[in-house]
């Protein structure tokens, strides 16, 4: 037995806008009506599914050029392992449009398209670094300077304990993490240097093409390093417009891009490009009146699951809106199944029957235990990220008091079994969309 998603016959693109019939708006409904105001102001009706389907069809048309653009920018870089691209599917667009309508963000077909910011999704997976030897780590610790000063003896001991995953109190870990972040900065930058360089050049090319910036201004304002300016003068780059940058990470997680790299990107993007960031355990220095107490900082830190990715909302040269994510191969794979617990807690039930036992266990967790479980997931992210950076890593164990079904190993097994099941279902499956009169 399969499922059929029926949609109404394809309707013409509305020209003036969409008005929502809020009385029929129910979360998750598949037949939410939206009133379409035509040019003559006569009210026509179409369902949201049709709009989602239409946007999905347009994305399919825009997809080849957008994919080519991402491949042209990052495809030849030695540090890039692989790139995946996909246009957003109609069901996913539908879910997102529902949210946009409820937020009163969508009042025309164009704003609906704009709201689907990640219409074309790309992932750039960068290679892991080689494993560091003890001697290399020792040298890095010896040479580490913070604000121009070498570490004290006590700081070195603390940092080494953190690097080698030695047991330490939460207070010690909080003190060690900022040192660890500084220590790991060169590794983070080594892994993502090529990606950030070529991304910066594509952003610069776009701004030059739009007349916002010249090479002279880039030189005067030191917006790019000398070697990049030289490349900009001698090579051709695919222009790319960036709208928003997110550099997600957990409380004790390292980001995909270092603060120095984010700053370099911010400079070449110019004003108007937004960068979202997370507080670290020391609190916000940007908001001096909103500093966290230690307990508050910890509370926030364990709420997040440690989700980590460098992420950008962009506009492709053919006008398609897209999202590029930058990750390492191990955190990328873990991310495929890590989000299951979060989705379940949010009430999304898109998982197959294989996950029934897992779902039951997740729904039984108290808020306190769920926070502890999230901490475990964050530790898993950090473990895989350490492997990507060539750092010593110890695989975290599921804390006592949790059913084994919730372990990372079991989540991976379930995910892989479900993927195999979906592959089997695809064989001989009838079309997802059947047009009806």
């Amino acid at each position, binding site marked *: 037995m399969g499922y059929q998603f029926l949609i109404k016959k394809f309707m013409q693109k509305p020209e003036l806008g969409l008005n929502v019939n809020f009385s029929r708006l129910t979360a998750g409904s598949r037949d939410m009506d939206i009133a379409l105001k035509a040019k003559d102001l006569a009210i026509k009706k179409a369902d949201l599914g049709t709009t989602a389907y239409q946007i999905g069809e347009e994305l399919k048309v825009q997809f080849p050029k957008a994919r080519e653009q991402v491949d042209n920018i990052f495809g030849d870089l030695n540090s890039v392992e692989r790139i995946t691209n996909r246009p957003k599917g109609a069901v996913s667009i539908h879910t997102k449009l529902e949210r946009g309508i409820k937020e009163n963000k969508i009042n025309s077909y164009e704003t609906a398209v704009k709201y689907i910011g990640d219409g074309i999704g790309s992932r750039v997976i960068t290679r892991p670094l080689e494993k560091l030897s003890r001697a290399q780590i020792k040298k890095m610790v010896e040479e580490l300077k913070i*604000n121009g000063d070498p570490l004290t003896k006590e700081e070195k001991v603390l940092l080494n304990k953190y690097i080698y995953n030695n047991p330490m109190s939460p207070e010690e870990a909080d003190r060690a993490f900022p040192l660890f972040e500084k220590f790991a900065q060169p590794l983070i930058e080594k892994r993502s240097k090529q990606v950030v360089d070529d991304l910066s050049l594509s952003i610069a090319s776009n701004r030059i093409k739009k007349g916002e910036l010249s090479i002279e201004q880039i030189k005067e304002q030191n917006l790019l390093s000398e070697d990049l300016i030289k490349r900009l003068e001698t090579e051709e780059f695919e222009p790319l417009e960036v709208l928003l940058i997110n550099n997600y990470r957990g409380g004790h997680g390292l980001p995909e891009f270092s*603060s120095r790299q984010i700053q370099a990107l911010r400079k070449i993007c110019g004003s108007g490009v937004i*960068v*979202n960031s997370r507080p670290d355990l020391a609190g*916000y220095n940007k908001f001096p009146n909103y500093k966290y107490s230690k307990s*508050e900082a910890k509370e926030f830190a364990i709420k997040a699951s440690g989700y980590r990715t460098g992420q950008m909302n962009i506009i492709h040269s053919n006008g398609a809106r897209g999202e590029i994510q930058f990750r390492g191969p191990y955190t990328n794979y873990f991310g495929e199944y890590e989000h299951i617990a979060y989705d379940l807690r949010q009430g999304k039930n898109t998982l197959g029957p294989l996950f029934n036992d897992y779902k039951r266990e997740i729904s039984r967790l108290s808020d306190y235990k769920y926070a502890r479980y999230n901490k475990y997931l964050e530790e898993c992210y950090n473990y895989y990220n350490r492997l990507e950076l060539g750092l010593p890593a110890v695989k975290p164990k599921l804390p006592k008091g949790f059913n084994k079904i919730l372990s990372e190993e079991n989540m991976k097994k379930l995910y892989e079994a479900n993927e195999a099941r979906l592959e089997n279902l695809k064989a001989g499956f009838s079309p997802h969309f059947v047009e009806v009169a």
Partner: protein
Amino acid sequence: MIKYDIKKINNKHIRMMPKKMEKKFSEELNNVILKMKNRISREIPDKGYFRNFAEDFENKDKNIFARAISLNIEKDENIEGGALLLVSALHPSMNVDATSMLVCGRRDDILKFMNKDNFSQKVAEEINKLSESLKRI
């Protein structure tokens, strides 16, 4: 994908200000701009190390989706003596902020930019963009 549970914002995280002390958004913004101009003149040297610094205020404007607004100076990590002037909006959950750059350069470049007639208007426009961005989180 963002994984913050904003439903669980604890009231203890909300810092309220007595009503009589409330100021208009534009007044608060101009006040912070003035403070930052003074601090930039004083704290950014021609050469050498300086600390990042910021001035913020609690947002009371219901049209702006943010707990607090801040103007902040970030030391340029690639150029000695360089700095970035940023504007940030803090999400009501306090778990994330959105930031955009207003200008970058040396102390005098930044002050020159801040002394332009339309500076506060430009900052207000950026804050609106940040607010819209935070609503989507």
